[in-house]
Every structure is written in structure tokens, then in C-alpha cells.
């Protein structure tokens, strides 16, 4: 034996390390709907394997918990077993010597609280409340339920027009989503089990960029019913599109100069080129939808007038007001809200930041949008100030990285405390209180706390506040629409308003600021339920036939990621940052799709929703 040795992992350990990575990806690819008790048991068994074996609660207790959970699933225990599981787990958390046992028992306690009904169903009736409602992970996780394996197969077959047509069955904004969708579809892609998730949005972008004109589905005969849509954003226009296809007469009322909502007045054109957005909007309007822009419902026309004039109303007003920080000096000149800035940019009224020091307050996607816009508007320095760590920012990591690459500075753990102005009232600096990251809140996000460090002065010519948006709901509240805490409109999952006949609502104004695809999904649901409310059962479908899948071996292959224009080039203009896939890349990437619509559960149940 040498006195000291260099650590060299053995072959077994190296393989185990690889298995860990495989399991991480595999867990990521878990479809929604699995039996929660079964999952809890299997996680617990993993924990059992991790115990060092020294202490009683962890070594024996976890084994006994595992045995009791197995009985719940496979045996015929009395209902009292639940209190025994609970008291055992409680004792383990209170007496285990280290995190291995404490955290494992906590996992069981969380489940007992979170899905006790499922535990009870197993014990009393020997069955599970879980079920695979939609076995195709990407489709299950797409709020609008777009037929993703279908359009990927069409891209693979070189049929981009058909791909766009298929997407439109569930989402009338194929182009906008191809550029900016947050792609929740990719999160649990089964391809994760082989290598990495498919680049679904990238393939959609390829489809829309290569489509030459996809025809719309056939419009149903006119029904004579009329619907007014209040708010011409993604949700309102989606509802408008499907209602028009169903043969209803649709009129859109939009407060701003142009249609598009946050896709125009929130998302900068370097992410979604205006012309591409207009492609989608024009395609929707081509169905014969009446549009009134710059009409403010409340002052130009009243809510009650609209209610009388139309058979049905859909409220999709979005979340377009700014939130204030409430710190002293916020009303100084040179302090503007992100909402205001992006609205001006949306109408091509570009502010000039040439040579300025710009400070952005916030850590979300909107903060990144204004940071990167300020760079493009000539700012000399842009500093993004956030009170937690970069990892805690709600903005997508690639947005943060993109901003940094373009020269932005991200200053974390700084809580804004006041804005300093000169004697003319012009803001000159933001004062911040440095923070220390602290304990987790109930959602598992760490809370910042005041650090024992002096406040800091960040000099600024302009300060942009991007800490969230609110909903202009006051006018509607006065007309009897119920408002929830947080200022959102109250509507159920069918988008109906309670106690208000013939009025529906959805999108950001109901959920609070969310994503384009969720607004589209709400518009789609609203269209179906409004159609039903008006006494019809129109079906939305497409004639496009999806190519039959071919049996293929699944050899691991890298994912084609999107490439971007170089930072130094792109930061000088508002042209699109992201480059599309080449033909070669699209062919390879689309062939990675495992066709879960066919292989696995898909060819049995739920593989394809052909109409809605």
C-alpha cells in the first residue's frame, strides 16, 4: 500500500456513472400519468441502494417503507398501513443521521400528502387513478395538442406544405411558434432515452420556411351566428380562426394599432421577424374576419353594447400593463417600463439609447428582451440587475447567454432600493442592496436576503423596469366580470365565465403572463366551447395523411441545435438571430423521431387525434 494514491475510477464505477446519466435522461422522458405510488416506490428503492448502512432508520426503515409500499401495490393491506407508513417515514426524517435517509423519507411523506387518494384507491380497490391519457409525450405536453410526430414525418418526407396544414389543425400560428415557442413538447421527448430530445421547434421552423402555400381547411357553411373577440393577440386570433372555419361571423376588436398582441408588442423582431408574424396573421384574416384596431372596449364601445350586438364574446385582452417596483425615484425621467418600450418598438417608434448607460431591472424573458433591444438601440452599456442568482432567473438560459454574448452585463444578487435623480428629475443611477442567497421557499426557489455589504450605486441614463405585467381588468370588473386575486379574470378550464351567459375568456388575462402556445390553446378550447354554446358540433380536421412509420433501429445520434448569427454582427440590427436548419440537418433531425404515434402505446390508443 502506498501512503497516498491517485483516485482512478474502476471500470464498474465508470459504467455506473454512465448509467446515472442514462437514468437522468430517462427520468426526464417520463410520460405524464404514471402511477404515482409506483414511481414513489421505485424512487425509494433507488434511495435504499444509496444508504451507507450505518444507521438503523435509513438501513432498515427505508427497506420497511419499500416493503409497505409494495404491499399497497401488490398485497391486500388494511387501510391502516398508511398511518404506519407515515409514522415510519416521520421517524426516519427525525432520526436519520444524514441526508440519504432524511431526504428519502421526505420523498415518501410528500407522496402521502400529494397523492393520498391514489394510495387509498390501491388499498381499497386494487387499482390506480393514474392512466396514460395521451401516450405521445410531445403531443401530451403541447398545450394545443399539435400532431408533432405527424408533422415531423411530413418534414422528413419533404412535404412542408402538408406539415404546415397539419399544424394548423391545432394551431393557426405555425410560423410564430416555429420561431418563438417555448417548446414544452421537447421536455419529455422519448428520444431522451436514446440520446437527446428532438429539436422539434427547429423542424417546425424548417417546415414554415420551406412551405410554399398551404391551403386552409374548408370553411363550414355560414351559421348566421356572430362572435366578437376582444383582443387580437395569439389567443384571440386563434379563436377567431377556428370560429371562422366553423362558419361563424367573427369580429376582432384590438386596442393597439396592429394585431398580434405580445407577439408584436412583447417579442422583439430579432426573435420573431415582423414579416413572418404577418404571414400567420394574414393567413388567419384571409378567412374573412372583420378587424377593428385602435378600439378601446370600455371607452370607444362598451362591453354591454358588444354583448347585445353579438351572440358570444371571447375576452383575450392579455396582460399588457406594467408592474411597478415601488422604490423611491421610480417616477424620474428616464425610467420606463419594459411594456412601454416594447410597445413603441412594436409600432416602429424606436427610442434612441445611443451612448447611454442603460440599466434593466428584472430576470425574466422580458428583461432579456429589453436588454437585447437596448443594445440594438445603441446603448453603450446595458446592465441587467437581478436580486437572485443567474440560475434562478426565469428567463430561458439561452436568452441570458445570448444577451451576455451581445455585451450585456448581468449583475446578480442586487435588490434595487432607490433611483437617484438629478435636480432636473432625470434619473442618473440605480442604488441596489447586495443580497445573499438564502433558504428555499415552498416552491423550492431560494430566497435572497440582505447581505452585510454596503449599498451599491450603478450609474444610469435610462432605467427599464421589467418585473412583470398585469391585466387591465378594471373596466371588465365594473361590467360584472369576476376578478381573481392577482387581477386575472375568472374563467373555468372550458374558458367559460361563471354567471355570465355567452362570455368566454382565456390566455394571459386568465392565467397571468404565460406563453404564446398556452394562449393559442385557450383560443382553440374557446372556439370549441363557443361553437357548442351556439348549438353546433363543427369538427376541425385536415385531409393530410401522415406517412406510415418505418421500422428503424435506434442508433444514438446527436441533436441538431439551432445556430445563431455571430453576436457582434447580430447586435447591430433587429434581424432574426436564429438560423434555420439546412436540408441535410432537417433530414437527419426528423429521422431521429421515434414515432411514438406508432411505436409503443401510440398504435393502440391516443396516437393521433384526427379531429376535434
Amino acid at each position, binding site marked *: 500500500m502506498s501512503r497516498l494514491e491517485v483516485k482512478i475510477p474502476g471500470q464498474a464505477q465508470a459504467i455506473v456513472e454512465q448509467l446515472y446519466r442514462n437514468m437522468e435522461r430517462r427520468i426526464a422522458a417520463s410520460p405524464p400519468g404514471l402511477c404515482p405510488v409506483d414511481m414513489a416506490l421505485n424512487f425509494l428503492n433507488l434511495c435504499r441502494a444509496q444508504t451507507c448502512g450505518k444507521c438503523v432508520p435509513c438501513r432498515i426503515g427505508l427497506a420497511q417503507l419499500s416493503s409497505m409500499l409494495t404491499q399497497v401495490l401488490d398485497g391486500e393491506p388494511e387501510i391502516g398501513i398508511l398511518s404506519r407508513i407515515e409514522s415510519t417515514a416521520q421517524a426516519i426524517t427525525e432520526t436519520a443521521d444524514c441526508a440519504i435517509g432524511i431526504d428519502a423519507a421526505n420523498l415518501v411523506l410528500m407522496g402521502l400528502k400529494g397523492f393520498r387518494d391514489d394510495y387509498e384507491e390501491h388499498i381499497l380497490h386494487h387499482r390506480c387513478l393514474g392512466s396514460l391519457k395521451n401516450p405521445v409525450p410531445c403531443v401530451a405536453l403541447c398545450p394545443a395538442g399539435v400532431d408533432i410526430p405527424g408533422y415531423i414525418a411530413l418534414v422528413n418526407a419533404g412535404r412542408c406544405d402538408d406539415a404546415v396544414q397539419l399544424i394548423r389543425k391545432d394551431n393557426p400560428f405555425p410560423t410564430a411558434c416555429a420561431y418563438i415557442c417555448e417548446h414544452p413538447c421537447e421536455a419529455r421527448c422519448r428520444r431522451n432515452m436514446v440520446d437527446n430530445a428532438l429539436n422539434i421547434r427547429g423542424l417546425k421552423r424548417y417546415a414554415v420556411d420551406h412551405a410554399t402555400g398551404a391551403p386552409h381547411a374548408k370553411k363550414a357553411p355560414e351559421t348566421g351566428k356572430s362572435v366578437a373577440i376582444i383582443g387580437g393577440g395569439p389567443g384571440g386570433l386563434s379563436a377567431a380562426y377556428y370560429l371562422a372555419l366553423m362558419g361563424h361571423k367573427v369580429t376582432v376588436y384590438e386596442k393597439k394599432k396592429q394585431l398580434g398582441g405580445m407577439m408584436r408588442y412583447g417579442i422583439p423582431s430579432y426573435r420573431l421577424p415582423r414579416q413572418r408574424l404577418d404571414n400567420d396573421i394574414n393567413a388567419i384574416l384571409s378567412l374573412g374576419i372583420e378587424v377593428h384596431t385602435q378600439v378601446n372596449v370600455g371607452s370607444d364601445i362598451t362591453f354591454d353594447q358588444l354583448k347585445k350586438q353579438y351572440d358570444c364574446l371571447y375576452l383575450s385582452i392579455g396582460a399588457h400593463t406594467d408592474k411597478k417596483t415601488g422604490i423611491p425615484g421610480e417616477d424620474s425621467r428616464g425610467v420606463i417600463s419594459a411594456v412601454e418600450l416594447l410597445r413603441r418598438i412594436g409600432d416602429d417608434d424606436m427610442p434612441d439609447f445611443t451612448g447611454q448607460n442603460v440599466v434593466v431591472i428584472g430576470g425574466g424573458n422580458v428583461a432579456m428582451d429589453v436588454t437585447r433591444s437596448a443594445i440594438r438601440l445603441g446603448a453603450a452599456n446595458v446592465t441587467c440587475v437581478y436580486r437572485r442568482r443567474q440560475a434562478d432567473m426565469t428567463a430561458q438560459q439561452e436568452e441570458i447567454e445570448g444577451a451576455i454574448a451581445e455585451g450585456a452585463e448581468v449583475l446578480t444578487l442586487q435588490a434595487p432600493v432607490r433611483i437617484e435623480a438629478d435636480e432636473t428629475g432625470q434619473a442618473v443611477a440605480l442604488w441596489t442592496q447586495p443580497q445573499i442567497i438564502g433558504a428555499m421557499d415552498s416552491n423550492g426557489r431560494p430566497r435572497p436576503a440582505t447581505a452585510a455589504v454596503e449599498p451599491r450605486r450603478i450609474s444610469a441614463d435610462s432605467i427599464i423596469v421589467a418585473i412583470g405585467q398585469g391585466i387591465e381588468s378594471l373596466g371588465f370588473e365594473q361590467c360584472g366580470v369576476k376578478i381573481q386575486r392577482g387581477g386575472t379574470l375568472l374563467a373555468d378550464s372550458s374558458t367559460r365565465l361563471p354567471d355570465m351567459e355567452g362570455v368566454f375568456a382565456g390566455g394571459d388575462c386568465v392565467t397571468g403572463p404565460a406563453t404564446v402556445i398556452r394562449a393559442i390553446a385557450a383560443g382553440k378550447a374557446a372556439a370549441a366551447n363557443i361553437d357548442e354554446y351556439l348549438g353546433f358540433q363543427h369538427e376541425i380536421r385536415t385531409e393530410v395523411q401522415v406517412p406510415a412509420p418505418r421500422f428503424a433501429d435506434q442508433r444514438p445520434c446527436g441533436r441538431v441545435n439551432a445556430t445563431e448569427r455571430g453576436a457582434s454582427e447580430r447586435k447591430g440590427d433587429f434581424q432574426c438571430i436564429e438560423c434555420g436548419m439546412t436540408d441535410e440537418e432537417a433530414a437527419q433531425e426528423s429521422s431521429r423521431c421515434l414515432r411514438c404515434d406508432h411505436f409503443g402505446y401510440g*398504435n*393502440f390508443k391516443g396516437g393521433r387525434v384526427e379531429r376535434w
Partner: protein
Amino acid sequence: MVNFKINDRDLTAAEGVTILEAAEQAGIPIPHLCFLKEINNIAACRMCVVEVVGKERLVPACNTEVTEGMVIYTNSDRVRRARRTNLRLILSQHNSNCAVCIRSGNCELQRLSRDLNIHYQPYELQLERSTVDLEAPVVREASKCIKCMRCVQICDKVQGMHIWDVAGTGSRTTVDVSYNRFLKNTDCTFCGQCVTHCPTGALTVRDDTNRVLQAVGDPDIVTVVQVAPAVRVAWAEAFDLPVEQATTGRMVAALKRIGFDYVFDTNFTADLTIMEEGSEFLERFTHKGKYRWPMFTSCCPGWVRFLKTQFPAYTQNLSTAKSPQQMFGAVAKSYFAEKIGVDPHKIYVVSIMPCSAKKTECELPTMNDACGDPDVNAVLTTREMCRMFCSDCIIPADLEEAEFDSPLGTGTGAAVIFGATGGVMDAALRSAYYLVTGTNPDADAFQKVRGDRPWKEAVFSIPGAGDVRVAVVSGLGNTRRLMEAIDGGEVVYDFVEVMACPGGCAGGGGQPIHEGVEMASHRGNQLWEMDANATVRFSHENPDVYELYRAYLKNPLGEKSHHLLHTDHTAWSVRK
């Protein structure tokens, strides 16, 4: 056309054909278990895997299309090993108590296990918990279920009732009643199509033979058995009898061997049903304003259950005439009891039916009109009858032909076709025509309602009554489409025949089971042939039915008929 090789033979097939089909066309069978043509090609059992040169993994033949240049081996070493491993895995979760299983000898799993020469099992037996509920006529034994999902598919795709579904997730995934319900709380029609398409003994129809044999063995009880039309063209399949021996007479002889005191024919009451239902139709048709339209036939209990739960507003449209089975029971315990001078409480009526739903029909609280006891005491399926023959060591081939007993044993050609889709309508129209015009139509005048098409429609002109718009449908999925069309005003009919099972009773849930083969059409054709060869082809010409009216009932729709032969479909509820 595509060119490919299987086991070194050069072959061609049309584009889009699966490897399984292409191989079968070339006379190369590939073992399969979960596959059911056009219904279930989910490649779950992995018995049909084959080796395709150039593919690392084995390929399921049932849902992979042959492509140009494919080189396939169906029995390579890899295939053999994998197939046997998977079969052993299936067997490790199957309660292989074959000796005491209803499907022994007619079980796909048993057959495959024998064919693949499986005679030891390395895996631990892991059986799913099974609780068997004998209250409903359809019985599921979870420990025998191999999760092929055929029952789910049949109920979804063919019958459209969605009673079965996948339950649970992960390795505990199984089949159960959908939405975590219990069978008795569902709208299940008990059509039994899930049973006849189950490859194992996981789904069976409740066996009631013991009850029946007990009655047969009791010297104080007079046992009376009736045999439904569709049974006679199917029973012999279980004995592999040549056509010339597969006769009704041999079946009657076998039933007499069992020891039934009287062997009668449901054809007799099928003719009686026509007299009542035909008269009822004419009464309704000539007083159109008093009734709701169309009028529906009521002889299929699966259909009656379907209508009562799926389209309850149409329950009044059902003919009030009882089914032939129930008319038989009522007549046996009244007219016949009087005739032979026996206390009807001592008469035990057994039906042999191609049907599982008939077992619930005889249990309905409204079916006890003759003497207060159930009019029909027990219902056996065709399969149960065959099992009784076997257990009494009856060799049908050796039997002398026998005749049905009198007086409830005569039936016409119009009665025997009740067992095929369109038969009830055809028979009813023949007699309705006579009842209006006083002359017989051509017995083949109503051919448009015959044949295998799932939804048939026609208009027939009856001089003196007018044009009668009729429709005939079989299979509950088709029935739902027809009902929706009626409800939506897309179609207008006067008289509609519905049978729950595809092809009618010939394809009933109580009939002999043949893996992968639908027999309804073949059996139906035999029934039509029996009609064509019958000397009497009109229900109103059945001499014993005539005598029944003369001596006892007096008139169709008369007071006695009303009491014994008609029923109130609204007086009971499907869900217990």
C-alpha cells in the same frame, strides 16, 4: 408491387401489405397471439417477430410493411430464442391451470405453447390478483389475461361501448372496466364479443350447465329445452363434423340423450313473434299519429340494453313483443303446461342460445308472466351445450337423427332466418304483406334486407298499406351510427331491425370460438339456405302456431297475447 425474400424464397406482394400478411399469402405462417385482423395490430405480444437482414433488432411482422428488397427470416436462431423467451414471459403471468379452464383445447396461448415446444418454465409465476364475479354473464379472470387488448379494441372499434380499458400504468398495467367502474355499473350490453375474441380463458361467459343438469336429474321436474335458430348451424363446429352430419336432427338427438323431457324449437316462437310483432307493426303503421317512429325490433337483448342506456328517449319505439326466447318460456308455462296437465311451477325451461345477453334477459323482473316464476329458468350458450354433450360422452356422429317434439317444435323458413342479420325483417315483411293483402308475397321478395352489409335499407310497397321504409343493422358501432342518423333527422324509417352482434345471432357471443375467423356470414348463409329449402316459408302458415291461437291465445295482440307475449321495456333499469 414490392419484391422481397422470406426464408430465401423470392416473393412479391402489393405495397402496404404487412410482413405477416405477405408471409401468409406465401403459405409461410408466422406465430402470433395478440393480432386480430383489422382490429388489433398493436404488436404487443412480440410473438410475430422476424429477422430482417440489416436491422439490429427483431421486427414485428403484424404491423411492419414489406418493402422493396427486404430479406426476412421467420425462423432464424435469434427469432426462435426471442419468441420462446417472450412466450415464457407471457406464461409467467398466466394462470396456466389448463386442466380446469373453459378454454382448454381452444386456447391460443395453450396452442402456441404446444406449437413452440415450451415444456418448462424458468420464470417465477407472478399472477395478477383475480376476483371472479359471477353475477354478470360476462366473467373476467384477471390471472388469465395476457393483456393482448383485443377485448378493449373489439368493444371500442366494433361495438363502440368502451366498457373495457387499460387500467393502471407501469408493469402493473392491466385491463379492467373503464373509468374504474365495476361491470354491473356500466352500460355493458353483455353482447359477449369480447369473450369470443379473447385468445385465452380470461373472458368467458358464465357457465350455468350445473344448474341445468341438476334440473334434468330431478325426477319431479319436467325439463323443457328450446334451441335458437343460429345454434343449429354452429354447434357442430365444436365436433368437426362433416357437413352432412352437422344436422339439426343430430343436435336434437344429443339433447334428448342429455335427458331433457321435451326438446322444442325457438323457431316455433320466432313464428309467434312474427305474428305479434307483424300485427303490432301494422297496427302502428295504420295509426301513424299515435306512435313514435320508427318501430324497432325487440328480440335482441343486447340491443334493448343498448337503446335503453344510449338512446333512452327511443325506448318506446321498441316493439312490445317479447323475444322468441321469452315468448317460448311464457307459452311453455301456460298453454303447454295446461296441455300436458303439469303444474307450471314444476316446469323448468332451458334455452340454448348463441348469445350471452340472453342470460340477463331471462333474469329480468318483468319476465315472469306465465305463472309467477321466471318464464325461462336458465340460458345456456351454444358452447355450454357442446360442453354438456362432451361431458356425457355423446358422439354426435354416431347418433340417429331425431325430430323436435310437438307441439312447440315446429318452425318455418321465416323463423330460422331470425339467426341471421335481416332475417327478422324479412320474416316480418312476408307476414305483414299477407296480413294486409290476404295473399302471400314471393318469399324472396325482400332480398334487399339480406346479406352481410352492416347497414341495409330498402323501401317495400305493400298494396293497401303503402310504402314501408325499412333498415337493418348489426353490430353496435354500426347501430350507434344509425341511431345518430335517425336522431339527427338524416334518415327516416318505419321499421328497423337491430342485432347487437356483427352478422346477427349467427355471430353471437355464445357461439363456438374460432381464432381469427369470423363465422357469422358462413353460418348466416346456411340459415338462408334452410329457409330456401323449407316447405313452409311464412310464419302465419305454421300449423302449430295457428293451433295455439285457435285453442288458446285467440288473436294476435289479443288479451292473452298481451299478457303473455308482450312486455313493458320501461319497467326495469339496466344498471342494478
